[in-house]
């Protein structure tokens, strides 16, 4: 006699008047593949946990956004924000699509150069650029945006030493109606700090102001903030051109577009609460077109990071243990912790399972494997009863995790890219002991001990 299919037992208390008004519709799904590659095949090749990036999704999103922007304002140039995800394979996809590089450190600069990006296709931002790094950037013709007066002086010194007049941009900050205002980067517009910076550069024998930059924040939910930003930058461009007889060739509006991640503390799913990127693009391009005459159209740089890539990435993890907490709350221990998931501080990830699971959904908490109380990956997930070995697929994952992840207690996992033909490529292998201890040096007298 064949046995019956097993469905885990459950018992649930009925609570009247406390029904879930907004069902988390996506959680009822399961996903046994990513971009045509089976989850099992990915894990067999790369291990678990593993970050998985969908090449086709990156390209499609980029093309959609680029087409939308360039059809409204043709002189736009996207610039991949390296800090969002600077794995070679990711950057190379963007560079193949025509995006240049935006970096904020000499490390990122070197990484872009090594990958084959010419210096004059690199935008160099950030509040701290060592003198040596500035020198290289100027020599190689990079687009450099200065952050503060000390950096103006530094740039002047470097240019003078080189015996060459160099083009620079300045970063501005301004009130765009959003709170909190990012005022720590660049020169403030309202208090005339930006004006003074332009004046100081105008006075310099060695510097030439050709660009204005600003990045008003991240995960912006209000397209109008961009309209305000563009207006201020055009006004400032006019002032500078009129008063100092300078020609501003480019305006850089930074990044900040939101992704379809679910911010903690928000009620509605991101499909409803996050405006589409076309709203942001429309706000920028409409302001440009209404404020400028065609003969003065500057090059517009966009440094969009998370908004372009986040949804192209997943983390595949495996349930290792199931535990009922004394409070009655069900908990799971998975093999990936918050040390890989920098963005878990802000996001409630979407969770999918790799197989259909019978049984009633239950609120539960999902812990990582670190022996640390803070290691909570999902504080409040609604999941069917999972068996050991079930894989959880968390997303969106492609922005900021694979740059801000930490080697802590465990090795960092592999990153795979599912190529547009469905092939699975490891674009960063899992770490091993040698990777971690390589830089360490043990003083001679500490080498021996007996226990």
């Amino acid at each position, binding site marked *: 006699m*064949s*046995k*019956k*299919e*097993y*469905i*885990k*037992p*459950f*018992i*649930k*208390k*009925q609570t009247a008047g406390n029904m879930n008004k907004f069902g988390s519709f996506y959680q009822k799904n399961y996903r046994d593949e990513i971009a045509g590659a089976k989850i099992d095949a990915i894990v067999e090749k790369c291990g678990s946990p593993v970050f998985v990036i969908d090449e086709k999704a990156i390209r499609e999103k980029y093309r959609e956004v680029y087409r939308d922007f360039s059809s409204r304002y043709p002189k736009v140039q996207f610039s991949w924000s390296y800090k969002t995800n600077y794995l070679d394979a990711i950057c190379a996809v963007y560079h193949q699509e025509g995006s240049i590089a935006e970096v904020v450190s000499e490390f990122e600069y070197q990484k872009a150069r090594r990958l084959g990006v010419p210096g004059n296709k690199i935008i160099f931002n950030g509040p701290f650029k060592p003198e040596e790094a500035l020198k290289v950037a100027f020599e190689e013709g990079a687009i450099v945006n200065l952050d503060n007066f000390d950096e103006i002086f530094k740039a002047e010194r470097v240019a003078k030493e080189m015996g060459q007049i160099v083009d620079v941009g300045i970063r501005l900050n301004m009130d765009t109606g959003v709170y909190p205002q990012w005022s720590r980067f660049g020169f403030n517009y309202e208090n005339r700090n930006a004006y003074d910076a332009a004046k100081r550069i105008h006075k310099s024998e060695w510097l030439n102001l050709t660009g204005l930059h600003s990045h008003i924040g991240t995960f912006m939910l209000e397209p109008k903030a961009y309209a305000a930003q563009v207006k201020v930058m055009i006004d400032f461009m006019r002032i500078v051109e009129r008063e100092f007889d300078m020609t501003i060739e480019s305006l850089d509006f930074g990044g900040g577009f939101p992704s379809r991640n679910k911010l903690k503390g928000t009620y509605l799913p991101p499909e409803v609460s996050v405006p589409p990127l076309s709203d942001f693009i429309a706000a920028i391009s409409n302001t440009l077109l209404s404020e400028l005459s065609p003969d003065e159209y500057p090059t517009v740089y966009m440094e969009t990071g998370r908004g372009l890539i986040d949804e192209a990435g997943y983390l595949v993890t495996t349930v290792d243990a*199931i535990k*009922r907490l004394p409070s*009655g709350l*069900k908990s799971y221990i998975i093999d990936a912790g918050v040390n890989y998931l920098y963005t878990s501080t802000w996001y409630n990830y979407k969770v999918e399972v790799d197989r259909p699971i019978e*049984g*009633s959904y239950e609120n539960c908490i999902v812990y990582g494997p670190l022996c640390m109380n803070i290691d909570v990956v999902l504080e409040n997930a609604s999941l069917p*009863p999972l*068996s*050991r070995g079930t894989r959880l697929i968390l997303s969106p994952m492609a922005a900021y995790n694979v740059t801000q992840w930490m080697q802590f207690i465990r090795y960092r996992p592999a990153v795979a890219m599912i190529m547009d033909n469905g092939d699975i490529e490891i674009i960063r292998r899992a770490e091993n002991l040698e990777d971690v201890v390589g830089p360490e040096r043990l003083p001679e007298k500490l080498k021996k001990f007996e226990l």
Partner: protein
Amino acid sequence: MNVEKLTRLAISDNGFIFDPITGHSFTTNEIGIKIINLLKENKENEDILDELAEIYSVNENELDVDLMDFIHNLKNFSLV
């Protein structure tokens, strides 16, 4: 374990459970009903596991963990 409270529950075939003393109601599934019935007969966990393993195609460790979890839930709901 005191299973007296379980005996007072009204349990329908489709898994609806009503506790006439507290007025609370619960839902469970087929195997949940089986477990409650076996508990009412004062069966030991070992015996319950054996009986269920006869009926369902399941790894014994998984069943063991799930049974403990189910009983834990009954305790949380003050049903045992």
